[in-house]
């Protein structure tokens, strides 16, 4: 038998209208159409979703955990991006 393994797909599900798709897991399938059908069978058996995305795992480019520090340093020293950085006089109740 010629060994041709089914490629890996990552599965994303929108649980209900108005929410974004969220990664739920992965599965193997011969192609994207089959991946959608299999994703329906394993990841939405209890009405967990109303829209499915499948993405070939090899098509995903991910940041590397090793560069975590370098990658996120630019945001590190900008506390003024958060509303709590600003002092308001007590008289201002809501802002």
């Amino acid at each position, binding site marked *: *038998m*010629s*060994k*041709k*393994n*089914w490629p*890996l797909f990552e599965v994303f599900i929108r649980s209900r209208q108005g929410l974004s798709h969220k990664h*739920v*897991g*992965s*599965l*193997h*399938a*011969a*192609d994207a*159409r*089959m991946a959608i059908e299999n994703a329906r*069978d*394993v990841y939405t*058996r*209890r009405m967990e979703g109303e829209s499915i995305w499948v993405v070939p795992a090899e098509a995903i480019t*991910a940041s*590397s*955990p*090793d560069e975590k520090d370098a990658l996120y340093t630019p945001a590190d020293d900008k506390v003024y991006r958060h509303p709590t950085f600003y002092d308001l006089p007590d008289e201002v109740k809501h802002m």
Partner: protein
Amino acid sequence: MEEQNMMQRFDDYVADNKKIEPKDWMPDAYRKTLIRQISQHAHSEIVGMLPEGNWITRAPSLKRKAILLAKVQDEAGHGLYLYSAAETLGVERDELLEELHDGRAKYSSIFNYPTINWADIGAIGWLVDGAAIMNQVPLCKCSYGPYARAMVRVCKEESFHQRQGFQIMLNMAKGTPEQKQMAQDALNRWWWPSLMMFGPTDANSPHSAQSMKWKIKLFSNDELRQRFIDMTVPQAEVLGLTIPDPDLKWNEERGHYDFGEINWDEFYNVIKGNGPCNKQRIETRRKAYDNGAWVREAAVAHAEKRAARRNETAAA
């Protein structure tokens, strides 16, 4: 970063209850232990389909057939979640299945016992899934992210399994004397193997300490076994069935049930491959895999044809 620094960071992370994710650095031994643990767990899910599958066509009503079918389908799904989690550690699913089929990999010994009457399906749901839940709930908080997330999904689905098993037991225990006897017989046969599901005693579980340090095991075997017994005894009372252990009694001082000696010879014997159904289970698995080969190949051929046709249309 140097290996030593990375090790330090890993240890701090785990100690801090932070999750390790697939691309994070991890010690080889952690990776290997996880692959073994998660794949064994996955194998248990799919081999676990077999004793129950035995009853899908024989379940005593259409409703029960449909429910059992849904349950067995869940087990397949659990297997998939777990194989996927194992694959994030850099193994191929086919390698894992090969290890199962040629006997290198283990799965939970409980599935090497036969299901000889309908009440066995009740006992499996009630006791075996009950024990599995006891083992699995803590794993939702384990240190490896993909494993923990898979366990959250599994546990959500597993509680239906335990209840459907308990309901079967309840119906039979409240039925005719013959039905009640069948339920009692199933409890007699499944009780001790269920207790063995928690693994050897702490004193005989050499890898537990390391696994607990790594937080891929959060409670000891004996601790979980005790919890299971304490939870299950009152349920057996509701059923009006007798747990087959003359030494079982409430210990006021400990606040737990005392229980009799587990037959560890039987446990190790079944692990070694000499249980009532070991050979049959693996044969069934192998046959299913081999007989499915043409389907997997056909799916690939079909996908290739579809892709080629798409390309033609695009080119035209």
